[in-house]
């Protein structure tokens, strides 16, 4: 039996979800010239490369023809983002084994006879002879790119010793370079982004990241990859120290070909597309589901987002009301819309009849937040709040009894709405379900895969829904409510900043985040403008003095009564 106290606590937990503090009226501050308020900064980070970053970095440094054959483990997600998980994830023996396998294949491909000339910076030295100058040049050229900084003299010497020792044993200059490269590719300096604090503070005396760490933060944020040669050179000569120099690099990166990849990486992370790896749909109930549909569904949403935000220079809020529908043949089957092209993508709009509006009505959202054999207004409503509004929904109570509520063969309760109605009578369920279910119920025209329907078990489906104070119907109503919700844009700001820094925002950064809210609003909610503002801000590079020597807190949670 739940005590009244527990129920009260749960009500309070859920109530606080609806009204988080600190989001107040940022957009209201107008478009007057915005100045960045002083901030506290955070700790220097130690971040693991994500799979996407690893692949992009190898492709950038060595070319897209170099194979990456590792099997990457599932990424750790924290605070709603894998990007934050990279600052907490460890590196298991399995992971290193995989990195080592990948390193072997990459190094073999780079030093293969047909490619050597491209990567060994000297005139075809003989195989048997060890050429120290050539080896040193090889180490310096690739080491700088892979470690994202200039190599220290003794470090370069150590790698040269590795190459020399390998040559002594193997008698083959290229094999020696190959193993040296394997070493660099499994070194912590490559696999982990180890941020360093500058020996000289910023102009105002506060500590900040050193130039190479700043370049690396900037580069992974705006290109999803390691700094290119130009950015490393700029960092090396101190060009990032001046606002003009920094702005030049930021604008160059954002105009470059990899900027779109960074935007895709952010939304892939925010929309939790990594969960597609575990997604299962029952083949009897949803025979149309297969891995092509799963891949195309993600791509459809990412195309919609980049098309709208980048090519169309659109307002972020309009993503919830756009009817744009890039389609493939496989998707056309589920969406029941004809697709003329046999292969590839066809631009178009969702049919009026389907009622689809906004990315929340895409398969990538509907299928991901459903059960294997049926839809789930609760899971969808939870995702609406967690993904788009940055709210956190608590776990269900431990001793909850759902019996009869969701039995979808129950003739007396043919639709999900009927079944969920039972929650309304249970006080302990109601507190949280009232926040989740109404938003999800508006999407009930779409089954567990996301296909359109109007009836469930023969009964007509009612798609009226609500989100906080607003009532509406269907996906379009939900889209408008999301577009107008006060937390939609501030959620994106906070996610974007966390994505950039690899951590959640800190208490001392509230004023800074409100400045970003205002900047985003002033720019008509253009996402590139937000990203540019972050990249140019002091706060992005500032290090809090006290966090540099952080207290040993650990991940371990002390058992109750011990702390």
């Amino acid at each position: 039996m739940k005590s009244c106290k527990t129920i009260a606590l749960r009500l309070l937990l859920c109530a606080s979800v609806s009204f988080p503090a600190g989001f107040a009226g940022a957009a209201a501050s107008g478009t007057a010239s915005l100045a960045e308020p002083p901030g506290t900064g955070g700790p220097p980070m130690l971040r693991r490369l994500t799979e996407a970053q690893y692949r992009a970095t190898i492709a950038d440094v060595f070319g897209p023809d170099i194979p990456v054959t590792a099997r990457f483990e599932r990424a750790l997600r924290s605070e709603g983002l894998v990007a934050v998980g990279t600052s907490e994830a460890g590196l298991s023996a399995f992971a290193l084994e995989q990195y080592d396998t990948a390193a072997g294949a990459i190094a073999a491909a780079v030093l293969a006879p047909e490619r050597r000339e491209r990567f060994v910076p000297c005139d075809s030295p003989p195989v048997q002879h060890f050429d120290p100058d050539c080896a040193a040049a090889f180490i310096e050229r690739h080491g700088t790119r892979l470690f994202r900084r200039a190599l220290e003299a003794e470090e370069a010497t150590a790698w040269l010793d590795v190459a020399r020792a390998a040559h002594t044993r193997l008698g083959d200059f290229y094999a020696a370079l190959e193993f040296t490269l394997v070493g660099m590719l499994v070194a912590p300096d490559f696999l982990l982004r180890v941020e360093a604090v500058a020996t000289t503070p910023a102009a105002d005396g506060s500590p900040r990241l050193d130039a190479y760490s700043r370049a690396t933060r900037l580069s992974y944020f705006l290109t999803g990859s390691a700094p290119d040669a130009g950015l490393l050179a700029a960092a090396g000569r101190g060009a990032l120290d001046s606002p003009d120099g920094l702005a030049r690099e930021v604008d160059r990166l954002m105009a470059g070909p990899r900027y779109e990849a960074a935007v895709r990486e952010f939304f892939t992370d925010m929309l939790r597309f990594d969960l597609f790896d575990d997604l299962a749909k029952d083949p009897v109930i949803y025979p149309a589901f297969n891995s092509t549909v799963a891949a195309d569904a993600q791509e459809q949403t990412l195309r919609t987002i980049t098309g709208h935000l980048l090519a169309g220079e659109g307002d972020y809020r309009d993503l919830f009301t756009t009817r744009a529908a890039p389609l493939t043949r496989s998707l056309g089957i589920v969406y029941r819309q004809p697709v003329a092209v046999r292969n590839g993508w066809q631009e178009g709009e969702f049919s009026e009849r389907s009622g689809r509006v906004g990315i929340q009505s895409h398969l990538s959202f509907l299928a991901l937040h459903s059960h294997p054999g049926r839809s789930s207004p609760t899971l969808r409503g939870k995702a609406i709040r967690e993904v788009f509004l940055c709210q956190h929904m608590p776990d269900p109570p431990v001793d909850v009894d759902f019996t009869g509520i969701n039995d979808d063969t129950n003739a007396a309760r043919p639709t999900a709405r009927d079944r969920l109605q039972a929650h309304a009578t249970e006080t302990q369920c109601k507190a949280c379900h009232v926040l989740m279910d109404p938003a999800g119920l508006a999407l009930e025209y779409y089954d567990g895969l996301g296909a359109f329907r109007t009836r469930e078990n023969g009964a007509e489906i009612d798609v009226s829904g609500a989100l906080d104070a607003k009532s509406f119907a269907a996906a379009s109503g939900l889209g408008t409510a999301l577009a107008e919700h006060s937390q939609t844009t501030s959620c994106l700001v906070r996610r974007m900043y966390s994505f950039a820094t690899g951590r959640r925002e800190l208490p001392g950064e509230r004023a800074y985040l409100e400045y970003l809210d205002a900047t985003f609003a002033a720019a008509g909610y253009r996402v590139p403008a937000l990203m540019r503002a972050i990249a140019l801000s002091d706060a992005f590079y500032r290090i809090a003095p006290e966090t540099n020597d952080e207290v040993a807190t650990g991940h371990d949670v002390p058992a109750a009564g011990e702390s």
Partner: protein
Amino acid sequence: MSKTNRRGFLRGALGGAAVGMGLPLLDAFLNDSGKAFAATGQRIPVRFGTWIWGCGFVPEKWIPTATGTDFDMPADLKPLEPYRDRLALFSGFDVRLDGVPNKPHVTGCLGLRTGIPVPNDRVAAPTLDVLIGDVIGRDTRFRSVEVSTSGIQRSYSFRAAGSANPSETSPLALYQRLFGEGFQDPNAAQFTPDPRTMVHKSVLSAVTEDRQRLMRSVGADDRRRLDEYFTAVRTLENQLALQLEPPAPVENFTLPDAPEDVVVDSEMEHVMETHRLMAGLLARALQCNQTRVFNVLLSDTTSNLRRRGSSTTHHTLTHEEPVNPELGYQEQVGWFASQSMLAWRDFLDALDAIPEGDGTLLDNCLVLAHSDCSIAKSHAVEGIPTMVAGNAGGRVRTGYHLAGNADPISRIGLTVQQAMGLPVERWGTNSMATDRSIPELFG
């Protein structure tokens, strides 16, 4: 206080310089009860593994009414009749929460494996399989091997909180990892160490030389993460070192064939097949010393198992299926619980199929099988069903049912570690803290 010191000491000792401390003890154990291969005179190693199934059990179909050696086998245990002498059944042992909120399907599973219940995914690592692996698994190619058979890459084996030792989900990928590149046939007539392997190994040593510089440059949390990285590098170096020595010959070993490409997902029939294939491969890997430690996840703790054409999963059913008034339990949930025990028998069959010394591989294993809760519907962590199979080369006694009478389940974890030669006297926190091992379990 005592907890911090003890665990801190243990972690430091295992992760750092005094890493060999467990070994003399292990040898001492073996002198008493170790067995040897008749032909080669080599000592047979003991192996340790865990086998997890999700969403608990139906008590009336699982818990024997009698305790001791003369116990009955209720319906779900019936298929395990051939193994009754090689199984120890534990009922009524609790994960004690001490006010820690019970995160459904997580707190119980991790509490059992660490002795410390946590309210979220921040496991109080390392889990006991890692502690044991650091002692018995150091001389093998892989420190441990993890598999998950229901298509989900999840694992409850943690060296540090931020990273589980991830599971293989495909039999083919498992085969390639174990018996593909880098595998040496233990019975090959010729052995020539590969100079490239020597160079590869020395390159890894060079990578670790920078350890101090990096450790100094980061905060305490990140030092732990870096420490995990360097432990992983040492493990990899060790793997390569083993490839430079001729492998010890193994009796009755034949290289398994690559498994057929099967459908890997959460449908029960597919899971049973995937599990059978992976169990067979794992048994072969244990036989030829590729690893001595393993963790098998039949189904995740929020079990995603399902029947073809059904709109609900095992876990969802535990909450939504009405109790069948005639049976007195949830019928479909019960079906999955029964299937899980059939899979457990398949697993024991795989270990028992491999002759070793004067018995089988199973006799030289200690497999700890457990779920994450007892009655999934209420997420109860009291009386989580737990079993020990195999005799660990004589170190462990089986063939009985023991009722825990609400004792902390950490008693089982403590005993298992001691049986594996770990110098641990006390394990767990608060009312899970115990120095009372289970005398019945010692051989």
